[in-house]
């Protein structure tokens, strides 16, 4: 009985995996096809040549390098600042004793229930009031702190025995010194998880850039790609080439860092 259910589990997972994988596979192959091959019926599976012409054409039609640079810039800034604020907040909630600590943390956690879409109007208003509408800063500022990542890190910090903290304090360590010399190095794998998840989210962010960016040269990849697909609607093979460029960095990143993402979430994020 056990064996049978095992077989079914694997069968199901294999089918589901193929379904997930197929669009990417199709996108990748199509990026090399000619215009005729893409639209051919019945479909042509393997392109006649693996020439990079579609990539070249796509890059000529829209400033993908610029988008790429913007995406990287936004990612580095927002991930960097979010990581810093999350570490500090997690440490405060985990180790420092101040009045209202638990209440405040519960309040913050409950705010995770609010979907981002609900905050779009207020964030939009704020961005306009700050005068950073249609700049890269509008993409960074709303993403400089995260309750979720704070929560993951706090959970890890909570597992570090209190004796380590007091030992360090008695040995002359300040809170600040302890945090960076002991806590953060120990939290390396949780931090990796947080940074990776955050980088993925930042890279894939689409809706918010669409609202606050109108100038072409300030667009990030996903939003730029969307504009490009609308404009290059008649050239699906070029769309596929552009899409491949957008998803490739994150796929590579994911392949390398898979074990941190899975491990970190399982350890820090989803218990309790």
């Amino acid at each position, binding site marked *: 009985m056990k064996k049978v259910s095992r077989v079914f589990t694997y069968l199901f997972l294999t089918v589901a995996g193929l379904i997930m994988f197929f669009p990417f596979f199709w996108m990748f192959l199509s990026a090399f096809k000619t215009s005729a091959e893409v639209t051919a019926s019945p479909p042509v599976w393997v392109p006649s040549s693996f020439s990079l012409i579609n990539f070249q054409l796509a890059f000529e039609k829209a400033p993908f390098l610029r988008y790429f640079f913007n995406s990287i810039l936004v990612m580095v800034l927002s991930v960097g600042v979010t990581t810093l604020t999350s570490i500090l907040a997690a440490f405060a909630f985990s180790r420092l004793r101040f009045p209202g600590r638990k209440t405040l943390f519960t309040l913050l956690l409950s705010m995770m229930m609010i979907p981002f879409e609900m905050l779009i109007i207020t964030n939009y208003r704020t961005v306009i009031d700050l005068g950073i509408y249609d700049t890269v800063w509008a993409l960074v500022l709303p993403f400089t702190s995260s309750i979720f990542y704070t929560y993951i890190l706090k959970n890890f910090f909570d597992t570090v*025995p209190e*004796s*380590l903290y*007091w*030992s*360090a*304090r*008695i*040995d*002359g*360590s*300040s809170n600040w*010194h302890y945090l960076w010399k*002991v806590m953060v*190095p*120990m939290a*390396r794998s949780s931090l990796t998880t947080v940074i990776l998840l955050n980088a993925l989210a930042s890279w894939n962010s689409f809706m918010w850039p669409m609202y606050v960016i109108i100038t072409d040269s300030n667009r990030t990849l996903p939003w730029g790609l969307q504009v490009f697909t609308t404009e290059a609607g008649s050239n699906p093979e070029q769309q596929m080439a552009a899409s491949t460029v957008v998803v490739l960095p994150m796929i590579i990143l994911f392949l390398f860092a898979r074990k941190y993402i899975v491990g970190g979430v399982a350890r820090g994020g989803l218990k309790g």
Partner: protein
Amino acid sequence: MHVTLDHITKKFDDFTAVQDFSARLEDGELICLLGPSGCGKSTLLNMLSGIIPPSGGHIYFDEDDVTMMPPEKRGVGLVFQNYALYPHLTVLDNICFPLETQHVPKKERVEQAQEIAKLVHVDTLLKRRPGELSGGQQQRVAIARALIKNPRLLLLDEPLSNLDARLRLEMREEIRRIQQRTKVTSVFVTHDQEEALAISDRIILMKSGVVQQNDLPQRLYDSPANQFVANFLGNPPINNIPGVIRNGGFHAQGADSEIRLPLFEGLPEGRPVHLSIRAEAFSVEKDGPIEAQVERVYTMGKEEMACLRIGATEFRAYIDSEVGLTPGRNVQLNVRKRGVFVFDLESGEKLA
């Protein structure tokens, strides 16, 4: 450095962890804070290190009042039960850590660490990480880390509890050796009476936050201040035989016979008491004042451990194996002067 604790009290909400504790720790002494769990000994240690502030009273290091001084300024070394080593640092970096915070140059740090590592015998392990060490080795590293900054006071919080029995013996001798080499005033917290008796210059025995007795180890054993102290020390535990003093003799509960010892002179009539006798204080004597029934006998080699009965009370005694006790028979016993006490049955107050 000598340490003076002056009427220290610690309250957590309405729970009193330490009640009016006063003591003086002499320079270079190794002092044990001994007591069952929850007696306030760790709380006291944490007040010495500055981790928690006392609710009342004062702590002096030599003549300086350090009561409110933060832990990093006190110059104490602390060894935790779980060692609290930094898992991401090597043994060398762990030992160097206290010097790093004092901004001692790296070369000097390493030299000092190597020296102290030699003292505690971990000099061959400097490149390893704590996860690759045995419990005893981790303990040594923790001691090295506590000692490297030349602490004025070394605090050890149940440092041996996580070790297995054999290692515990070895490490307690090590701690004693290192302490005598460095001559640092040390406070050792433990609930293990054997440990305390073996290594300390002086023992402060506590119960429910109150000092029961502050004395030399042997004195604690030989002349306990009250029933609690007598019960706490000694293995097997002291025999307590409940009874009443009448006409200058002791009547054990449920026994017809009377026990007459010089010890009972001047004790108040009709007072319910415990006659407390250590297992090794008995000897078989034909005209001995105590008559007991032999219940069981266990051979232990050079002597026998006998379970005996007086009235309703069973008790244990070490008897010379040459005597050859027979279960079911009665035997006449005498007691030595050492190890025989009379305590009030209710209050545990020492009467004789």
